[in-house]
């Protein structure tokens, strides 16, 4: 039994589909997750990467650094070198005032967006069954 659209076995197709949706959604919010983490404290590259991976907010550590480079260019974050105890100096990332105001803007947009999406999916106040609804459709496609 194979999926018509992505030529993988059914189970893998579900995984691939889930991964694709997650990748697309994460793309837009990763930057603000980084800002939110830095708003708590300064962090160095690997710290950020580890936490993002732990939280499932990024699949590839390699995409973090290009993002940081752009945020630095845009003035949302700044860097400084700090001698770390015994070893070589580390480069720490810190949020700037500009970054904080971006984060506030994002928080407002996100709250509105999340509320609307939750409501549509029926997982909000109304409570409902919208999420499982999607799956039979995919199964039908799979058989057809």
């Amino acid at each position, binding site marked *: 039994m194979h999926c018509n659209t992505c030529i993988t076995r059914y189970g893998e197709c579900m995984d691939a589909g889930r991964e694709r949706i997650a990748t697309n959604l994460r793309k837009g919010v990763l930057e603000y997750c980084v800002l939110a983490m830095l708003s708590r404290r300064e962090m160095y*590259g*690997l710290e950020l990467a580890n936490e993002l991976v732990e939280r499932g907010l990024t699949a*590839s*550590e*390699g995409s973090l650094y*290009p993002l940081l480079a752009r945020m630095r260019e845009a003035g949302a974050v700044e860097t400084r070198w700090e001698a770390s105890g015994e*070893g070589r100096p*580390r480069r720490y990332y810190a949020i700037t005032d500009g970054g904080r105001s971006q984060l506030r803007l994002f928080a407002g947009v996100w709250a509105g967006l999340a509320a609307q999406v939750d409501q549509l999916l029926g997982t909000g106040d109304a409570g409902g069954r919208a999420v499982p609804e999607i799956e039979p459709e995919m199964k039908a496609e799979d058989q057809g």
Partner: protein
Amino acid sequence: MNTERTPQELTSYLRTLEAALADAPAEARAEILADVRAHADDALEQGRPLTEVLEALGPADEVSEQYRRELGLAGEPGRPGSFGSGIAQDPASLREAVADRGARLLHFASVAVAVVTGAFVAFLLPAFAVHSMSTGSGSTGSGSTGFGSSTEPVDMGTRIQTLFDQLGAGAILLALLPALLALLPLVLPRSLRQPVAIANAVVVSLLALISGFTVGLFYVPLAVLMWAAVVVPWRVLHGLDLATSLLWRIFGGVLVCAPGLLLVSGLITGTIVFSWGTLALVLVSVVLGVLFALGWRPVYAVIALLGMTAMVLGMVDLGLLTLAVWWVGGAWLAIGLSAVATLRPRRGAVAP
């Protein structure tokens, strides 16, 4: 963990990354490499195996591609989607249409200038060689007006000997020959256009050079125009657009200014006596040159028209400066038309 010695795989990963970002600003590239290297070093220190660390980072060319996207660098050659490149390239078809239209414009102008030059040389211009010979011998060949040959060839009312008087119908043939040559690129198949245009430009240049001390100098504007008809469409085809090419505009602007600047240097050294007319000429040429460099489109046609007018005036009012006026007019005509020939159709309009 020994961080002094960098593992081979990490070194080659970083090297690949560096090469893929070779065109990035040096400072940005150094920061990128420092970030990725520090990440790998820290991860190794935590005891993660190198292969796993590099895998988690993703392939070096993917990371570099993400950097390009985030930092707005142009896409690598051969990769679709270039980021941050300011001006969209003209489609090749548009460039072809503009080059074709420009070529026809300049070839038509060449025909016109060839006809005018031929008429000028054959019927209006004193036959220099014959004249100097006859003044040398002290007698004229025709003597039809009774004035005979005077040392003032442009004296109004003097019957001036022209090539036509000397050679009769042969002069017409001689005069028409360059015009016929100039017509060829317009009537021959398109594949022959460029080779014939080059041959024409070479022939007319040689004519101007060989007979430089007689009538040849009057063919210089035609030669220049013919070279423009060769070069300008070719450059347009390869992406020349005056609207975006400041360097070419400055080059053209300086050429347009040149007569004015020559007048200024003449005034300074005292070879030219000051007159308000001279000053006006200087100002006009400088203003035209500046407007050209600024890329104000209407000025291109104005320069071409003024050039044509100057040529006609030089023809009608023969004098010491005839050749100079003829050349300046020819230069302006060639520059103005060349600029017009590079113009893209305005938005929405489609080139024929």
